[in-house]
């Protein structure tokens, strides 16, 4: 009996879906647009989060010591900094390595290379590259260092540029999310209205049937269920289309994302796939719930026989 009821509901919903095919297409299109808008937001969020993490990993403070500072003094500073809870890692670059790095960087510039060769002593000091546990910890580390007895040993520090970069990305991401969220909410609202209207039209075309059903003793759920099933169809079909639409979008933006990260290894598709069930599962549940609520409201007045 349960199976025959389900088949009846399914058959009725499917017939109604096809008999009003243009209305069904319009409804599904709006839901797909809502999904694409939300998925675009999610993609942007994934890319910006990854970008911020990549930059955070690359951020460090380089402490450039005076050339006359000895190795033991640098190591003393290193052990002092290691004792700080905010510090994650410290890399020591000796004077010799620092000179090598400098020469490598300027190997095209013969004037610099020949000038260095003429010098008797190494003019470049050692460097400590300090990585904090969190990007927010850098100002605190800098402050501790500036107020310590070691501040005089250091001739230069670099940090400010990274902070600016991260703030810009964060701001862009936050603003985009705000606009995207509003757009998605508008789309969802419109989608709910369109589903409401579609179900109303479907009910209107079946109004005499509904009245007769009521008079021969049909329960409200017997009458409602095919329309709710139709609303569920819209959600499922729209979700399938938006799944089919999202991968070409991901493939399209992949080269731009690779360029941005300067690597071919990062795949936006793989990252999106990690959240596949969370994204589409939630979207499907949300749209089905929204459709069911719209349909329940739409059918209410026709059940008062």
């Amino acid at each position, binding site marked *: 009996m349960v199976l025959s009821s389900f088949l009846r509901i399914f058959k009725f919903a499917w017939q109604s879906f096809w008999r009003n095919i243009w209305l069904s297409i319009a409804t599904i299109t709006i839901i797909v647009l809502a999904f694409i808008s939300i998925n675009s937001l999610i993609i942007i969020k994934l890319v910006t989060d990854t970008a911020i993490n990549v930059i955070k990993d690359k951020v460090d403070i380089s402490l450039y010591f005076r050339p006359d500072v000895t190795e033991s003094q640098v190591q003393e500073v290193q052990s002092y900094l290691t004792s700080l809870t905010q510090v994650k890692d410290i890399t020591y670059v000796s004077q010799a390595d620092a000179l090598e790095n400098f020469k490598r960087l300027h190997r095209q510039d013969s004037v610099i290379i020949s000038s260095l060769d003429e010098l008797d002593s190494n003019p470049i000091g050692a460097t400590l590259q300090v990585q904090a546990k969190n990007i927010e910890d850098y100002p605190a580390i800098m402050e501790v260092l500036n107020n310590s007895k070691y501040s005089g040993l250091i001739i230069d520090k670099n940090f400010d540029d990274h902070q600016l970069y991260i703030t810009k990305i964060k701001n862009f991401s936050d603003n985009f999310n705000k606009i995207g969220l509003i757009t998605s909410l508008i789309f969802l609202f419109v989608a709910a209205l369109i589903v409401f209207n579609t179900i109303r039209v479907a009910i209107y075309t079946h109004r005499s049937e509904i009245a007769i059903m009521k*008079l*021969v003793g049909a329960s409200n759920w017997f009458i409602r269920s095919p329309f709710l099933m139709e609303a569920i169809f819209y959600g499922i079909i729209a979700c399938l289309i938006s799944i089919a639409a999202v991968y070409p979008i991901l493939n399209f933006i992949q080269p731009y994302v690779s360029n941005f990260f300067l690597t071919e290894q990062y795949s936006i598709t793989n990252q999106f796939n990690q959240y596949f069930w969370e994204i589409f599962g939630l979207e499907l549940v949300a749209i089905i719930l929204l459709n069911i609520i719209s349909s329940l409201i739409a059918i209410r007045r026709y059940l008062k026989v």
Partner: protein
Amino acid sequence: MIIFKNIQKIYPPDVDALKDVNLHIKPKEFVSIVGRSGTGKTTMMKIMTAEERPTKGQIIIGGWDITNIRPRDIPILRRQIGVVFQDFKLLGKKTVFENIQFALEVCGVDATRSREVIPQVLKIVGLTGKEDRYPIQLSGGEQQRVAIARSLVHRPKILIADEPTGNLDSINSREIVDLLLKINEFGTTVVLVSHNREVINSISKRVVALDNGTIISDQKVGKYIL
């Protein structure tokens, strides 16, 4: 079986459709409710099927007080009452068989059981062999027989017929009345709502006459007196 106790029905703002109606219909009775248009006959029928609620009074069907029936219990009530309408209320896109099956589906009866029951009901109403026809392919009388078959298919104890001959010629009307009498003989209580003098006078059963929302006569073997 059916009891109207001091039933009053006022349609907003102040239309008195029924005024203090008292009526007791016994099981297996055949009762005709007669009266001119707008006297409250259909309101009485709607109160019996819980389409309308009385403003005052009490209505009891088969021992069940349905005066303040809960919405979720209305389908249960309607499955125990067969209702026939003047305009047949058949679904044009369904065959005779499907129209009757539809009423069984509503009660959760499966297709196998439907195939057993429907031919029996079609035999009673004299439509054997016409199960695959669509309503448009039938005469008015035949359409009304389909409607009666549909109302009988869940073996109701009460059959309410609201102007069942209203859209039919005299020959078809006679056939429908004969069918209702036959159903009554099987033990079903029949309430016939009509303003057709000829039909009522030919039945020789109890006649309740309504005028302006009030019962003005109740005769055991009556005639159309208005």
